[in-house]
């Protein structure tokens, strides 16, 4: 239902404009902004749900006066699924942001930041609904630019500027790659709508191989899987927390959406593409979580977990692509559906976690893990939300992260039980296991070091619970995590519908019965919660009439432990990281009795930046030829004339 959708977008835009309106009473316009954006997101979500539930996909054509034909927008199950994620997380982040940035009103950029958030949300929605090259690329780049401006919000800090430039360069290069991709593809198409791209895909002239490679690069940079993740951690850490939530939850997912859409238009990805996706998924899944373990900065840590989760999503997509390539529709459906569902799940719990990180940063004034501690008792709401988010991201029952991982595992098993080379894909299960185990280590570390034990610094000790403006959105997202965990069937079916868009036709429809399995998972989650609750009650009853003895923590005969004696994040992660050696990207330094580890991204610091420096040096050498001496320039002219005369002579047949 186009009207609803575009109405929603315009309401969001109105919200953005409202943020720019100066008002005498501070915060009024921010509230208006939050309300309008939330309302707009609700409308967009409704429009999407109509398609997901009702199944009536639509397309509208806008006659645009630019070369390349009409602009088409539309919502099908795939777009709708992404739209739901965008609307949900977007609303939460916007509401959160309205309060979160209030502390920095002196900064002056705050209204513009809010407006940029609105623009970001609108362009996100347009990216996943555009059905023609030009509007897609327009929305795509405007999204990137708005995102860049938001990353630069705190631009007085040098590292922010550095991250911002790296981000800008990366994203623009990605856009150029996409331009190249669409150029190749559309060269044989008769106009630039996705429909005719799909038609052209059947012709060999389309050069689908090149298209897919370019798509992998262009969308891959946005999605941020290894080795294209280099921009991601810095940018996520530099941006304001609610923006980090939007980036990690939504923006990088547009890369995934782009890949899925390209696969859908190309009529399925070939075998090599499936294996590539799977391989990339395993690599970035494992490396992402390993590098996350090495971090000392809570936001960088979460950012690396985005790399990890993109890896999990890619594993699902890879096995899905292999499913189609090997004619196993059920595997394809499960794989793609698992990936798509994980997109939603990750959007929710990673958004939640970044918002939590923001709350912690506000409360304790630092992002350094080893400077925090004991915040759990000071900010119980944030702690609860963050804990739920952690359980979800580790993929533990009874929350939503488990559901999507379960689906992906099933797809992998299906591949393993298939015929031919595809069976090798089953090793992906092991990768998922390893990833899960490492993620558990990482998030026990975060929760333990940030929220448990005792405060390591005075600032942390002074931390107070944030206002409802911050924790209500977090709790809302946490509730979503729990609901999806308890009632998976309600999301699994739409995910399968979206997967069918990718596969084309209703190949997966009859082969997969999501109902029973999902119902079991939900039941198990419920049972678990019930058991735990019963245990808790029983425990209460048992302890009812016993007095509680409260003492100091047992220090193994050491009388008075101080907060500084607590286990730090570094020491917690050390034994897990040690086996990974150099891959872990930790550089260790001893100063006297002080022992520090410095996380460094082996790819960015070790490969990309040195390569760039070498290029600059080479160019500097080349510029020696070009010192602007007049006679040299004249020599060039002379040489050109001679060369051209020679060409002339060679082309003159009397």
């Amino acid at each position: 239902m186009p009207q609803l959708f575009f109405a929603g977008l315009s309401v969001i835009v109105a919200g953005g404009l409202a943020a720019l309106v100066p008002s005498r009473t501070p915060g009024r316009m921010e509230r208006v902004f939050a309300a309008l954006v939330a309302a707009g997101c609700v409308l967009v979500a409704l429009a999407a749900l109509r398609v997901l539930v009702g199944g009536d996909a639509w397309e509208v054509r806008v006659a645009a006066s630019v070369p390349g034909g009409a602009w088409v927008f539309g919502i099908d199950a795939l777009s709708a699924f992404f739209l739901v994620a965008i609307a949900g997380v977007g609303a939460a982040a916007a509401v959160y942001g309205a309060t979160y940035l209030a502390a920095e009103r002196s900064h002056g950029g705050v209204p513009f930041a809010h407006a940029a958030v609105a623009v970001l949300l609108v362009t996100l929605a347009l990216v996943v609904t555009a059905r023609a090259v030009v509007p897609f690329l327009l929305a795509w780049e405007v999204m990137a630019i708005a995102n860049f401006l938001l990353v630069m919000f705190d631009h007085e800090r040098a590292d922010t500027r550095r991250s911002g430039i790296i981000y800008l360069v990366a994203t623009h290069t990605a856009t150029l790659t996409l331009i190249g991709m669409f150029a190749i593809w559309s060269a044989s198409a008769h106009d630039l709508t996705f429909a005719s791209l799909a038609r052209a895909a059947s012709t060999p002239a389309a050069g689908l191989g090149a298209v897919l490679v370019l798509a992998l690069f262009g969308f891959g940079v946005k999605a941020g899987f290894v080795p294209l993740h280099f921009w991601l951690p810095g940018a996520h850490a530099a941006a304001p927390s609610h923006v980090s939530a939007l980036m990690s939850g939504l923006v990088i997912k547009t890369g995934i959406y782009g890949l899925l859409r390209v696969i859908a238009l190309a009529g399925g990805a070939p075998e090599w593409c499936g294996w590539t996706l799977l391989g990339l998924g395993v690599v970035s899944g494992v490396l992402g979580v390993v590098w996350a373990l090495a971090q000392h900065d809570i936001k960088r840590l979460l950012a690396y977990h985005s790399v990890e989760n993109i890896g999990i999503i890619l594993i699902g997509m890879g096995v899905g692509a292999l499913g189609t390539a090997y004619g196993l529709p059920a595997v394809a459906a499960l794989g793609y559906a698992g990936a798509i569902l994980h997109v939603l799940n990750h959007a929710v719990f990673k958004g939640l976690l970044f918002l939590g990180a923001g709350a912690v940063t506000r409360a304790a004034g630092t992002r350094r893990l080893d400077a925090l501690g004991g915040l759990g008792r000071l900010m119980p709401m944030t702690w609860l939300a963050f804990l739920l988010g952690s359980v979800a991201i580790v993929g533990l029952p009874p929350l939503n992260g488990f559901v999507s991982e379960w689906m992906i595992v099933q797809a992998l098993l299906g591949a393993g039980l298939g015929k031919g080379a595809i069976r090798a894909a089953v090793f992906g299960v092991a990768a998922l296991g390893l990833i899960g185990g490492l993620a558990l280590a990482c998030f026990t570390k975060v929760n333990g070091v940030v929220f448990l034990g005792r405060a390591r610094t005075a600032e942390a000790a002074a931390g107070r619970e944030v206002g409802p403006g911050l924790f209500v959105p977090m709790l809302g997202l946490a509730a979503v995590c729990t609901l999806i965990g308890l009632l998976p069937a309600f999301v699994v079916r739409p995910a399968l519908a979206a997967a069918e868009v990718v596969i084309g036709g209703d190949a997966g429809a009859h082969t997969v019965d999501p109902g029973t399995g999902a119902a079991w998972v939900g039941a198990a989650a419920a049972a678990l919660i019930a058991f735990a609750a019963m245990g808790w009650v029983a425990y209460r009853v048992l302890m009812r009439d016993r007095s509680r003895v409260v003492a100091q923590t047992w220090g193994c005969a050491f009388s008075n432990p101080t907060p500084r004696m607590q286990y730090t994040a570094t020491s917690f992660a050390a034994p897990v990281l040690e086996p990974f050696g150099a891959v872990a990207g930790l550089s260790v330094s001893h100063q006297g009795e002080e022992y520090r580890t410095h996380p460094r991204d082996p790819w960015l610091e070790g490969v990309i930046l040195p390569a760039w420096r070498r290029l600059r040096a080479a160019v500097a050498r080349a510029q020696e030829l070009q010192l602007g001496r007049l006679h040299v320039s004249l020599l060039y002219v002379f040489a050109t004339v001679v060369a051209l005369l020679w060409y002339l002579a060679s082309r003159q047949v009397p």
Partner: protein
Amino acid sequence: MTLLHALVLLPALGALGAAVHRTEAYRTGWLLVIAALHLVLTGLAWTGAPPPTLGGWIALDAIGLIVLTVVSVLFAAVAVYAVGYLRRENPRGGRAFVSCLLAFLSAASLVALSHHFALLWIGLEATTLAVAPLIFHRHDRRSLEAVWKYLMLSSVGIALALLGTFLLAASQSVSGDAVRPLVLEDLMAGAPQLHPAWLKAACVFLLVGYGTKMGLVPLHAWKPDTYAVAPGLVAGLMAGVLTMIAFLGLTRITQVMIAAGLGGFVTPLLLTFGLASLAVGAAFIIGQSDLKRMLAYSSVEHMGLLTLGLGLGGGSAYGALLHAVNNGLAKGLLFLTAGNVVLAAGGVAGDQRGLLRRAPASAILLLAGLLAVAGSPPFGTFLSEFTIVRGAFGAGHPWIGAAALLCLAVAFVGMARLIVPMVYGTSAEPGGREARGGENAWLVAGPVALALGVLLLGLFVPPALQRQLAAAAAVLGGRAP
């Protein structure tokens, strides 16, 4: 006197008027009025194609109309800017400055309108002469060197172009005397009868001549120095207008060659020049520390893109013409803004920091310009570059398309690394120059208008313009994508 005469004569008279006028206020007002009138006349030209005059020496076809429009629009923006500029930096009353500006406009319009190769050549030489004093506005040693270099190289180019013109005439001499010599229409009409040997020779020398004025590698050496020392608005005029009309000269000879069925001769040359300019321009953008110098290389790069599009033909030719428009606007925007930065903070544009705080308008314009010149949506440059690249793939030159995109990426990295730190941060950065305010409406209005223009062209290319572009591309063996 018809519209076409007016387009040329009005600015010429304006130049005289500015030269004789005593008081400066009059002079700037004069400048504004002429620019406005010229704009109006150009608008009139869009309403209906005026008839050729001077025995067909002066006429207005699709390409001419497009070029004329860019010239007029850009000049109007520059004129507005000039008012603010002359208030801030005006060593000698600006008499020579204003009259040279107007003379330049007159010559440029002449080039856009001339359908006679000798007339075209005269116009181009006149622009060369008119710009020289403008570059030399500051009268210091560096600008003297730059002017000398500019004059020397471009007059060599002009001379070679004249030789090319002679050769063209010679090629015509074979085909009967009924034809009007060197008149475009007759050349096109009688193209098959033209003597190929002379024609090829003519093509080569015109290519070198006008290529030098466009600044194609390796004939570009004058560009960085000249743009670096010239005042922002002059550099803007050169990068936007001068290169544009030189490109027109290039398209003229190309169109004759194609009509004569010698496209196979000229295409490799265009592709070679185009790729060379793209690559060198992109590579030299990296690590420039002077904004205007860097923009000069960016101009080289984009001239390469235009030439490439011309050589590729097909949809790329259309894209090239559209890109000529977009690039003109974008370059004007950036050079005017660079001028603002220099006025606001002094020193070389490039060592300022934290402009967002001190000169917000210029800072935002810089960012917009960066994106616009890099061809990122929603700016018009995106559409044109996409069309060119798409045409390259369509014409079966995938590697050329890939190379173009690679160069654009490299160029963007270089530009972002210079511009982003200028815009953001605080002026307390190490090595950063204290950025002072001091923008006024005159200085901001022009670039803002240009920014809006290039932005608009990304979202909406007026149907009329599309028609003209299609017609122009058709002459160059191209078509609307």
